[in-house]
């Protein structure tokens, strides 16, 4: 019996790796409460994504296709998901804590009169209840919460759940009938999407992240961050100060209000290490900091520090790494 529903994260025609992390969470919950999971996806045309989705060990793959669903408007998505949850008597609904998950799931929870835990990092099972561990206070504390409502809604942190590996067995795929748009849709209109451009991997997926802060002084100077990241096939990150100053697109902000990353290697360049920034990267395996101020708080979380002018140290680092390749 499938009693857990995973809402897939699809962007720009691709099923995001975060979907696989949510599946790992779902399979763990399934082993606790007994039962299995299904995966639901919403979009204009999901034929390209079905092969990926059908190899994630789900009881079934549920597709909702209609023009405009790619826009992921919560007002449009919620009644569609709600109908599936009610019909299938799902007990747990989960999505990655992507911006779509964060936008849609609380509204869905309200429709289902369900409680919701955001950004879940761990799950356990005790005396009939699922216990969710989630971060608070910019990751300085964790809380363990339970959800007493009939349906439990959660978003999960991609970095805390290893992505589910594709299986050979294919899940059956079902297309559902999409209910007509709700009345509220007359009061919201999708205008456009301006994509941030990057040839680098997505921040949460990357094995190496190189982040720059206000110390870079200009968008032009961010090129050395790009260059260093490129050597590792890594992603570029930034602080809020760097984004606010217009050095780089907001999509690259790491922190409490940006992306959460946990790469093998995180290189922090010309950033002070404010706790709102550290909240987004402190689970990285190895942290390197380059900052000219030896008092900068980033050195309190870094494994290796270089106290130097970044405009000297980064080009040197690029040269040294190139020698190894």
């Amino acid at each position: 019996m499938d009693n857990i529903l995973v809402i897939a994260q699809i962007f720009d025609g691709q099923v995001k790796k975060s979907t696989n992390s949510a599946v790992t969470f779902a399979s763990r919950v399934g082993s606790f409460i007994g039962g299995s999971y299904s995966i639901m996806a919403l979009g204009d045309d999901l034929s390209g994504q079905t092969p990926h989705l059908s190899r994630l060990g789900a009881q079934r793959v549920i597709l909702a296709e209609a023009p405009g669903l790619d826009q992921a408007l919560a007002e449009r998505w919620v009644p569609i998901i709600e109908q599936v949850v009610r019909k299938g008597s799902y007990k747990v609904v989960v999505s990655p804590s992507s911006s779509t998950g964060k936008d849609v799931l609380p509204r869905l929870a309200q429709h289902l009169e369900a409680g919701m835990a955001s950004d879940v990092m761990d799950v356990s099972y005790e005396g009939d209840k699922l216990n969710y561990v989630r971060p608070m206070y910019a990751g300085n504390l964790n809380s363990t919460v339970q959800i007493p409502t009939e349906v439990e809604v959660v978003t999960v942190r991609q970095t805390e759940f290893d992505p589910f590996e594709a299986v050979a067995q294919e899940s059956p795929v079902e297309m559902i009938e999409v209910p007509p748009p709700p009345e509220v849709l007359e009061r919201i209109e999708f205008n456009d999407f301006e994509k941030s451009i990057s040839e680098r991997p997505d921040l949460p997926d990357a094995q190496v992240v190189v982040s720059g802060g206000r110390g870079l002084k200009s968008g032009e100077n961010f090129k050395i961050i790009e260059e260093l990241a490129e050597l590792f096939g890594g992603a570029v990150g930034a602080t809020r100060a760097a984004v606010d100053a217009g050095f780089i697109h907001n999509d690259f902000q790491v922190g409490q209000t940006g992306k959460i990353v946990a790469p093998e290697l995180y290189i922090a360049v010309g950033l002070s290490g404010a706790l709102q920034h550290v909240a987004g990267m402190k689970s990285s395996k190895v942290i390197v900091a380059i900052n000219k101020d030896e008092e900068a708080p980033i050195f309190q979380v870094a494994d290796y520090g270089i106290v130097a002018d970044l405009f000297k140290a980064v080009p040197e680092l690029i040269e040294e790494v190139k020698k190894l390749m």
Partner: protein
Amino acid sequence: MKIIVPMKRVPDPDNVDKVKISSDGKRVSSEGLDWKPNPFDEYAVEAALRLVKDSGTDKTTGEVIVASIGPEEATHQVRWCLAMGADRGILVLGDDHELDASVVARALKKLVEKESPDLVLMGKQAVDGDSNQTAQILAGMLGWPQATFAGRIETPADLSRATVTREVDGGCATVTVKFPAVISVDVRIVTPQAVNNNMIPPDKLNRDGPRYASLTGIMKAKKKPMDRYTLEDLGVDTTQRVKTISFSQPPARSGGVILDTVGELVQRLKEEARVL
């Protein structure tokens, strides 16, 4: 135009690493820390003021109401927002550990029914609980459109609707919502040109960040009206949908070594950390 800005008081966000867990692991203590308006809510107040007030003159095209659910002491943070320029305050008495996002949203819904605002403009997340749920729940409850994570808001001069640029994964999504609506704001909403109501001349720049309360602002705030309710007065169902069982300390990171040369760094990364 009437705007409600829900505001939560939180322990000083720049010192949350000093928040402590009680010995039984069941409570959080922020003793010794100052209380501040949740930064995102302060940003929402700033955005609301930019929408309806012309700071150069005393001209105003609307009313900004700041509403907080919290203890009596939260009066201070509400007054702070009034000193910034908001017109009126509402305090709904409630104890933090009896609240979750759904209880807060239910209380806000009652206030919306009382006040009939055109817009609820709020923070995208309270930086103590970091839930990021209340705006979406409230919008769902009211059946209103929601524009979350707003980095820019533009309205026509008649303030009938808002075009909102949302900061989302992979870029920026722009939507237009007709009022009444719920908008939640992200950090960029306080950059100089983020709010445009097509009334303020484009060459008149806002400062970067939320405005400070001026001395006259503080004096005026003392006389501004403030309504008080209890959750009971408002008839709010206080059933929580999320129960906090305990708190724990995540593993701390400790500082490592400062190296003298980049060459040494690369060597360590290769041989010791084995990440190269």
